[in-house]
């Protein structure tokens, strides 16, 4: 019996793959929320992963945050001097760092460091059948590998972003301090003068969204890796590219929504 199958596409091969890919991604996210509230919670593994995420990116975030603080202050000073408004420098820096730079710098660094390593780790576990091995020994790999990692990034990246903002402000303070005498306390006070609770809340929400994005994208790409060792590199690479892309889109959307709330 010949069993020839005629392949039919709804639109075209490319479009069909695009939509079914999206569908698969949504199902992955839905499965995450479904499994999130089910036992067992693997708390120990979540804590392990939090440390992984934190330690992996701490050094780079410290350095980058510090330098961003210094450079941003150095660059802003001349423009403010023109208007004789250097006393506004701390406020300007406070707004820029807490509302925009801290979260974004952290997210991009974590997308690069954490996202790629999650993609590569799960990708290699997929192609070497370690994920199947969990499955056949009655361990739910989605819960053990995916849920724990996504929870970890969602918790840790906001903390890292906060830390990054403080380091950046400190870098900025050193620069300000070199030019005019000002104490650390009074610098932080004026930096936070124009920041209100809503600003902080929005920054935190933003970083929670970034953290979730980095975790879920890395896991999705890794968990669905194919084609042997080549697929591992591809998963890691795509995890970074897609996460960064989504982070920028989310930034725009969240800032827009925040502005609506502000003027409501």
């Amino acid at each position, binding site marked *: 019996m010949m*069993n020839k199958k005629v392949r039919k596409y709804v639109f075209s091969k490319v479009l069909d793959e695009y939509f079914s890919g999206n569908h698969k991604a949504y199902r992955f996210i839905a499965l995450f929320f479904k499994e999130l509230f089910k036992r067992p919670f693997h708390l120990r593994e979540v804590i392990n992963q939090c440390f992984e995420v934190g330690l992996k990116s701490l050094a780079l975030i410290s350095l980058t945050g510090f330098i961003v603080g210094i450079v941003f202050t150095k660059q802003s000073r001349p423009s403010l001097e023109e208007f004789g408004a250097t006393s506004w420098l701390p406020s300007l820096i406070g707004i820029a760092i807490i509302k925009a730079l801290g979260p974004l710098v952290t997210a991009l660094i974590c997308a690069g460091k954490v996202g790629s390593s999650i993609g590569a780790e799960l990708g290699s576990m997929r192609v*070497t*059948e*370690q994920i*199947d*091995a969990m499955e*056949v*020994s*009655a361990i739910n790999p989605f819960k*053990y590998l995916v849920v724990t990692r996504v929870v970890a990034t969602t918790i840790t990246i906001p903390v890292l972003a906060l830390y990054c903002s403080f380091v950046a402000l400190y870098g900025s303070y050193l620069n300000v301090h070199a030019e005019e005498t000002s104490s650390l306390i009074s610098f932080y006070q004026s930096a936070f003068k124009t920041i209100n609770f809503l600003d902080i809340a929005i920054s935190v929400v933003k970083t929670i969204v970034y953290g979730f994005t980095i975790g879920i994208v890395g896991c999705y790409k890794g968990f669905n890796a194919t084609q042997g060792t080549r697929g591992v590199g591809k998963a890691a690479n795509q995890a970074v590219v897609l996460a960064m892309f989504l982070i920028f889109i989310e930034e725009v959307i969240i800032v827009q929504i925040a502005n609506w709330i502000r003027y409501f």
Partner: protein
Amino acid sequence: MQIFKPHVINKEESVISITGLYKSFDDLDVLKGIDFNLYKAENVAVLGKSGSGKSVLIKIIVGLLKPDRGEVVVLGKHVNQLNRKELDDLRLHIGFSFQNSALYDSMNVLQNLTFPLTMNRKNLTKSEANDAAEEILDSVGLKDKLNQMPSDLSGGQRKRIGIARTLILKPQIMLYDEPTSGLDPVTSTEIIELINEVQQKYNTSSIIITHDLTCAKNTSNRIAMLLDGRFLKIGKFDEVFDTDDEQVKGFFNYNFIQ
């Protein structure tokens, strides 16, 4: 060498029963009507060229892949009608030894063994789990490798650890995916001995996928030839190879004359 001792098989009690199994991937028809029974305490070797669907077959048995058509009944349960919880309960009775061992490479040997145990028996203490792991490691002869990472082990050692990791859950059925492929003859012989030891010690029923006839002959009660998506022949070793079928003979010649 621990010679395989043919033992009496009770053909009443089948632990795996497959009827009319079909599986294809996109345009590729892999399995085209498999009918097969594995009886209690029996070892069956599945022979076939690479890419003929041997791994697909055992992955369907443990529910890693879904068949297109057909029934798969394992220990009295219809594999494809189970929910997650029921499937997990069934899987605890099936040991699956992967072709490339699939050891968790972020864990050392001891953790590889205790992981499935502690995940499935929540009330087990750490030292109980460690003791169980050490006992199993001892029985595969690798007690001294406790703290090594999988990447530091040889192929044969990885295979044995992989088998040990499934034994720790005391399965009733063992599925071996090419247990001797890529190993030198001496190490192969050790794995063959281990398979027989496991069968005798734990009274398991096994499917052994292989294209190594020495392994098939020395471990199995019956041989099943997988050709073109079907079992061309199932029977005792000599029965299967007492044939004029070119494809079967080709297989035989390749192994013993080359």
